[in-house]
């Protein structure tokens, strides 16, 4: 026990002395939090919508007005000129969508016949193409109903409520995910660098020669970086709470224990890479490539996990970040507590033990005793 603590204290004082790693430990997480937290937003607001009204009657104008009244659309900087194709505006990126109202629109409808309206949507961004299409469809239905053109007596009326996040604030979804990304990448990076540095400088051989066991060495180093990681998590969570007004929705216990276990997992991953990698560059590249790719793409951070296709979904089920994201989203949005996250918590514990054990066996092979 004593040896673990002294190893930990030695590691912490080394960490403090290196200015680059200190900056890496606290500036980078902050920068990542701010950039990811602000810049990752999926739903576009103020969509530039080009209009080509070939009918130009009170009805068509009322319809257009109704579309803009949703406050989702704005007029593009350039208008469609006469009969020219509005695709040009979309090609040039000036408009995200265009609506073409055919001549005879008013007459058709007054005769009780359906009039098609062509909607061109820029689908380079597939997610927003769907959102735009939904808004136009919904607004058209609302227009038909409210303008009494086609009074439909609805027999069933859906009363839709959005639970937990009624305002659909995207920061509530993204920021808890950013926590997972940061607390996965940076603690493991720091740990891996510390581990490899010892190898590169040859001090590892001294450790091998001493009677310190592999487990003790890893626990000592791990503990030091776990303490750093806890510092990082406090730092980003406080700042996250201040900037985006994130409040805990339920009990804090699952979040506290989940964060402890998750950062321990990250440190264990760093130890594993550190044991395996031969030099610091390799370690950094592996951690940043694997760490970022898995925590960003295979964790359900941006889009639902259920959309990941089969062989990749297997990989994603051993990504700790995905389980931690469950815990943070529950803590900040749902507030269910242990009943909702016990499985994720258990998986974090199992994956952590597995990672640590792999690092231990890897190191043991190199030791003589």
């Amino acid at each position, binding site marked *: 026990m004593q040896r673990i603590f002294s190893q930990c204290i030695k590691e912490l004082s080394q960490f403090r002395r290196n200015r680059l790693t200190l900056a890496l430990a606290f500036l980078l997480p902050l920068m990542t939090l701010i*950039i990811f937290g602000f810049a990752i937003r999926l739903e576009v607001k103020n969509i530039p919508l080009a209009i080509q009204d070939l009918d130009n009657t009170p009805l068509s104008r009322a319809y257009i007005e109704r579309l803009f009244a949703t406050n989702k659309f704005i007029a593009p900087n350039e208008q469609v000129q006469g009969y020219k194709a509005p695709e040009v505006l979309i090609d040039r990126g000036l408009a995200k969508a265009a609506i073409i109202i055919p001549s005879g629109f008013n007459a058709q409808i007054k005769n009780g016949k359906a009039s098609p309206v062509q909607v061109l949507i820029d689908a380079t961004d597939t997610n927003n193409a*769907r959102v735009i299409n939904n808004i136009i469809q919904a607004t058209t239905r609302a227009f038909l109903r409210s303008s009494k053109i086609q009074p439909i007596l609805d027999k*069933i009326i859906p009363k839709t409520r959005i*639970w937990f996040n009624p305002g659909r*604030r995207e920061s509530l979804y993204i920021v808890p995910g950013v926590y997972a990304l940061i607390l996965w990448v940076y603690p493991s990076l720091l740990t891996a660098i510390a581990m490899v540095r010892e190898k590169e400088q040859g001090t590892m051989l001294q450790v091998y020669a001493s009677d310190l066991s592999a487990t003790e060495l890893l626990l000592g180093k791990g503990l030091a970086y776990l303490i750093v990681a806890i510092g990082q998590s406090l730092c980003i969570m406080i700042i996250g709470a201040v900037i985006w007004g994130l409040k805990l929705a339920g009990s804090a216990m699952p979040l506290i224990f989940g964060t402890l276990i998750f950062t321990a997992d990250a440190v264990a991953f760093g130890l594993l890479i550190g044991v395996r990698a031969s030099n610091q560059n390799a370690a950094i590249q592996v951690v940043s490539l694997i760490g970022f790719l898995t925590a960003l793409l295979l964790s359900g951070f941006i889009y639902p996990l259920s959309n990941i296709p089969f062989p990749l979904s297997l990989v994603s089920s051993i990504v700790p970040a995905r389980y931690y994201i469950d815990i943070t989203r529950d803590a900040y949005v749902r507030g269910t507590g242990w009943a909702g996250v016990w499985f994720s918590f258990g998986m974090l514990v199992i994956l952590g033990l597995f990672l640590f054990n792999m690092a231990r066996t890897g190191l043991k092979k190199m030791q003589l005793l």
Partner: protein
Amino acid sequence: MLIESMPWLEKLFNSRFWALVQKEINQILRNKQLIILLIFPPTIQLLIYGYALNPDVHNIKLGIVDYAHTNTSRELIAALTKNRIFLDQKYFLREVDLATEVEKGGITAGLIIPPNLSRNMAQDKPTEIQVFIDGVDANQAGIASGYLNQIFSQFNRQLTGNLTPPLINPQAIFLYNPGLRSSWFFVPGVLGVVLTLISSLTSSITVVKEKDLGTLEQLLMTPAIAWEILFAKITPLFILLLGDVVLALSIGKLVFKVPFQGSLFLFFFLSGIYLFVGISIGIMLATLCRTQQQVVLTSFFINLPMIQLSGAIAPIESMPTFFQYISLFDPLRHYVAITRGILLKGVGLEVLFPHAIALVLFAVVLMSISVNRFRSQLS
């Protein structure tokens, strides 16, 4: 043409510059790590981004409490699940059970059909049906509720037997990506991300390595001047990186069937300019740092904001205004706009010129800064 330029070629082959280029080529070919770096990370990144990021809204797990148990209620459930947007995951007997299951995250949406549905139907009175959606994933919840309303209104028309279609019928045409395949959005963006990472990393490594080993001083002792040393370093790297562009493009084409609508020549021309931007960033990093480790760590500070503000992953239009302005100073943003423009939209310079000019400016400014720094470090 080759014969005409023979004297010129001969001059080139006998020049000091060419000797240095040959030295660099030999060094690169011997460096296995660099070759691996050029092939594997780009491939893995493109594949994972293309497959894993998918905003499709389908198979939303729906929990159902059906108090009515009539034909209508079953038809409604069938209408909701038939397009695979919703999946009837679980039936519950009580609302409370449904609510706890949503809280646990087992299901994402709930539908409660009240017992008075059949009575109301008989009396021609409207019935309110409660639907709720888990709003944790704000984006998915928004799209799902849009679909839900669409399905309900279609179902209503069926119920009333009102078969006249809605009088205004917006027919959506999805330009550039009619099948709404998400990989078509991500692959051109990630192509830019991959080139940024790989070009800055490899160029900084080749420069720093020489610094690390102290051989840069030896090079300096030779009559070669700074720009000759630097451009001899860049030239073979540039060609290898162009190979990466081809690699990324073929993965996009073969694996994800991403279309290539525009001009191939323009694409390679602008990609070449962008590679210069990446290479200059790498050299600049190399002049700032002493060891390879420092290079990789400081590159985080540059690469992270560059990638996140580029629109490769999340659309620029949805960022806060302030970040949208910052993104104008992100060369990757312009390159991503160019790749999407050429690959998906098939537009040419007449549309892309602002981005192309921006790229050229970035390349010139960054290249002259890095050459200057390199030279001042040498002397």
